[in-house]
């Protein structure tokens, strides 16, 4: 490994360093939850009925089957929001008399092997008196719809309203009003590793350990200790290698609570591995929204105001800790997107239905509102007779800092520049020419743009604005140099594929003056790391990275102090690099390892002026920063089959300073692939009775390598003033822009037929239906 030091003029941060995580993973030596052996396996008996009352549960003789009546004094999952007329609803760990969606856990079967547990589960008979179910979000709000929770008449669990003071005046001054109805169907984050947990018990200490696929180990511990009623110190939560999460593993599963309950009760170990069917029907869903959007423009196609009515179908319960309000409220807060407009009005409701609970999934609501707003901008461009690029150029914010119509502060960014870069790289005039030529041959090519900004790396004030009883935000990192000179960083954040062990090591290495390979980043274990919130919301590199920088700077200061004492020169004469402290202008050096040894074993030499050991803590709670991007998709639509091929996908994006460009590119690639899947393929379908029809990966279709074109990335790096590393978050952006770009491209391709595809996913069936319905669409 080459050195990156002051004298070589290089830094570790900013380099495409290979990941420290990889050698064990490519050897099959990763350690995932399901790899742990256990004494007993657990299988859940789940409701096959969307709504009803449990009349009887019959259990085979001799079997160990846990039901709600066994869970005395176990509290329900009950997240809370203190704003927006939120109605708290609890989810019992096992259904207690009532079932509210297909897949809801009713009983837990325990057996020595998973096959035996499945056999017994098949023989548990559950009798349910079926009651009317409601599946669609808007239908749940209609008068006379079945009421799903006793305390929530009308099924509205949360309602946000916002209206700027001058909205009515702005609206009245419109030269043109453009409207649209956007529909985003239900999706599932679909990590390759499903959820799963393993709970064990240590009789010598009376402690339980839950190893589980989670993005938030510390909060998982808090939640389970609260629900089961014991001190948090009686539980250790470990997130080992976690096989992707994308938000799905951030919400608390009832199943994990039950595993800990079993381990404490029976004082042995229990494991549950979710199967793919369980994951698809009960592993949390997302993105199910209706958005009615209208925008007022002046005669020059400048946005004056927008108004939106958002109905999010939040499913049967509320996810912990964010609550199910996260989708409607984020839609409301970030509605204006990257556009300069002064007036905004929004009503955003969460509707309870008899479907699987909705929870955050990569992008959370913004893929949907970006889709709605970007479709609207394209419709407006058409109404004004200008290019989609031109209407964006006229409306994108270009002066920073900027306060949005909903009160958010946008820091320095490059909305106009990323659009200009994307347009230049894609060569729009050449495409239009090619498109024209292709149409003459009966081939339908289209181009779609999506411009957006994305709030990332936000601390506790942003979460507090939603009124969350549990308000996440800050992170803590503890950097220690042990007596051998090895560096450990203990982080509260919990990566699961993002490469944080590498990027944080790069940040720390530059301060401490050792190479990243010398730095071990420890995460995912409540016994070994300081309390922290985890990895979600494009936050870890910004917030845990900032906390790492703060802690590492303190370590650096201490090393310089120790070196000053040991080398008997002024601190200002010390240069720390290459694992050594050096006296400037001389070849006198002392190694970090020797200083570390001294700091523990020879403290008497410091005359009480330097505290023993080397261990420093950094806390960071930033206000938040906005990343931005322009996505461009070129597609070809087969009008006979409705098939869409994405021919080209180009991104110009700005996530501030890139700590590791290789990892940054990987995050964008992955987000875009999910966005393309969300746009074209992925849909959880329910029948009218609430039975999920997408229960295998042959029905629910994450994209394969065949559907994803080569992705062209261009980075701008506008440093963020709201992030001490100058980095912005970028985990979610790919997913936010891609659906809008792809579906705009489909609509552009189909422009000759005068159809509107305003639903995602834009499946072949929907495209064919639109063509059939159009006057000139069905040539066949």
């Amino acid at each position, binding site marked *: 490994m080459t050195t990156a030091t002051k004298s070589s003029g290089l830094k570790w941060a900013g380099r495409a360093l290979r990941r420290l995580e*990889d050698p064990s993973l490519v*050897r099959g030596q990763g350690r995932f939850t399901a790899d742990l052996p256990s004494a007993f396996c657990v299988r859940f008996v789940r409701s096959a009925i969307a709504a009803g009352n449990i009349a009887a549960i019959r259990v085979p003789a001799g079997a160990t089957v846990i039901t709600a009546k066994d869970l005395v004094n176990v509290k329900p999952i009950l997240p809370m929001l203190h704003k927006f007329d939120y109605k708290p609803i609890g989810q019992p760990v096992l259904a207690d008399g009532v079932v509210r969606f297909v897949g809801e856990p009713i009983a837990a079967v325990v057996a020595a092997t998973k096959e035996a547990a499945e056999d017994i589960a098949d023989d548990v008979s559950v009798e349910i008196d079926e009651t009317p179910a409601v599946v669609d979000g808007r239908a749940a709000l209609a008068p006379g719809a079945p009421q799903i929770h006793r305390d929530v008449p009308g099924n509205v669990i949360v309602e946000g309203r916002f209206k700027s003071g001058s909205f009515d005046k702005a609206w009245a001054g419109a030269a043109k009003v453009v409207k649209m109805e956007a529909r985003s169907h239900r999706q599932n984050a679909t990590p390759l590793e499903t959820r799963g947990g393993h709970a064990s018990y240590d009789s010598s200490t009376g402690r339980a350990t839950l190893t589980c696929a989670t993005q938030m180990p510390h909060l998982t511990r808090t939640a389970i200790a609260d629900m089961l009623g014991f001190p948090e110190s009686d539980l250790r939560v470990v997130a080992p290698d976690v096989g992707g999460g994308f938000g799905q593993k951030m919400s608390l599963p009832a199943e994990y609570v039950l595993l800990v309950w079993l381990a404490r009760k029976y004082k042995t170990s229990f494991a549950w591995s979710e199967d793919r069917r369980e994951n698809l029907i009960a592993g949390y869903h997302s993105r199910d929204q209706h958005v009615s959007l209208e925008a007022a423009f002046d005669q020059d196609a400048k946005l004056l105001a927008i108004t939106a009515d958002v109905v999010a179908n939040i499913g049967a319960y509320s996810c912990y800790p964010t609550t199910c309000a996260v989708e409607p409220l984020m839609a409301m807060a970030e509605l204006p997107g990257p556009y300069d407009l002064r007036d905004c009005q929004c009503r955003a409701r969460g509707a309870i239905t008899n479907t699987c609970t909705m929870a955050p999934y990569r992008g959370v609501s913004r893929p949907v509102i970006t889709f709605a707003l970007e479709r609207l901008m394209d419709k407006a461009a058409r109404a004004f007779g200008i290019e989609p690029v031109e209407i964006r150029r006229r409306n994108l914010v270009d002066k920073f800092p900027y306060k949005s119509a909903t009160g958010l502060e946008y820091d320095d960014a490059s909305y106009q520049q990323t659009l200009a870069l994307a347009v230049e790289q894609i060569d729009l005039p050449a495409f239009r020419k090619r498109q024209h030529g292709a149409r003459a041959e009966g081939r339908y090519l289209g181009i779609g743009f999506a411009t957006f900004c994305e709030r990332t790396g936000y601390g506790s004030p942003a979460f507090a604005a939603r009124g969350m009883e549990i308000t996440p935000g800050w992170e803590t990192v503890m950097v220690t140099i042990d007596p051998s000179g090895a560096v450990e960083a203990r982080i509260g954040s919990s990566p699961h594929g993002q490469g944080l062990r590498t990027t944080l090591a790069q940040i720390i290495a530059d301060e401490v003056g050792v190479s990243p390979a010398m730095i071990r980043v420890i995460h995912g274990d409540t016994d070994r790391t300081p309390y922290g919130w985890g990895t979600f919301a494009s936050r870890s590199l910004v917030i845990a990275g900032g906390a790492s920088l703060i802690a590492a700077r303190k370590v650096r200061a201490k090393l310089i102090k120790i070196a000053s004492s040991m080398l008997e020169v002024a601190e200002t004469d010390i240069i720390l690099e290459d694992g050594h402290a050096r006296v400037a202008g001389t070849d006198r050096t002392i190694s970090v390892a020797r200083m570390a040894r001294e700091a523990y074993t020879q403290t008497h030499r410091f005359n009480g002026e330097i505290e023993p050991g080397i261990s420093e803590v950094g806390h960071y709670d930033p206000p938040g920063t906005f990343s931005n991007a322009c996505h461009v998709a070129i597609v070809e639509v087969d009008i006979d089959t409705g098939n869409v091929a994405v021919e080209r996908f180009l991104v110009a994006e700005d996530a501030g300073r890139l700590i590791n460009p290789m990892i940054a590119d990987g995050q964008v690639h992955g987000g875009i692939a999910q966005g393309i899947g969300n746009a074209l393929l992925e849909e959880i379908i329910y029948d009218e009775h609430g039975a999920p029809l997408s229960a295998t990966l042959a029905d629910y279709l994450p994209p*394969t*390598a065949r559907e994803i074109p080569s992705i062209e990335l261009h980075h701008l790096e506008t440093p963020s003033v709201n992030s001490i590393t100058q980095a912005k978050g970028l985990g979610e952006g790919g997913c936010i822009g891609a659906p809008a770009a792809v579906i705009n491209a489909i609509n552009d391709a189909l422009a000759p037929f005068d159809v509107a595809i305003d639903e995602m996913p834009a499946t072949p069936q929907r495209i064919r239906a639109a063509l059939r319905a159009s006057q000139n669409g069905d040539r066949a």
Partner: protein
Amino acid sequence: MKSSIKLTINGRDHDITVEPRRTLVDAIREDCGQTGTHIGCEHGICGACTVLVDGEPVRSCLMFAEQAAGKSIRTVEGLADGDTLHPLQQAFIDHHGLQCGFCTPGFLMLAVGVLERDPTISDADLLDVLSSNLCRCTGYQNIIKAVRAAAAEMRRR
């Protein structure tokens, strides 16, 4: 009604006793303790459990352990030669072909099976082959790059 079978994994024999319904992947993971092979769907779509049986990539969730008895099974644990990684493993590191790493063993075994048979496979055919497994993290960009780079390296050797 268990029966005794011998599974030969990466050249090592494992004498195990399994029910007829035991899938190969469960036997590899639980009876033989080789947990590098992962389970992603148990219905043959995702390919996370791909191993080589007599040189052919196989979904080990769709095969019974008994069907693999007496055959040569290769898993991700057998790819490296001591400290020296297989060219595909090295290429996945060099080209950032993995993020969470859960699908990686399956992709590695799929690609090893195909490239050992035909290291001159065309890019288009390779894309077809790689589309048989799912990855949710990488968007496939760097997996494709890594496999192409490894193919070049394997041709060179």
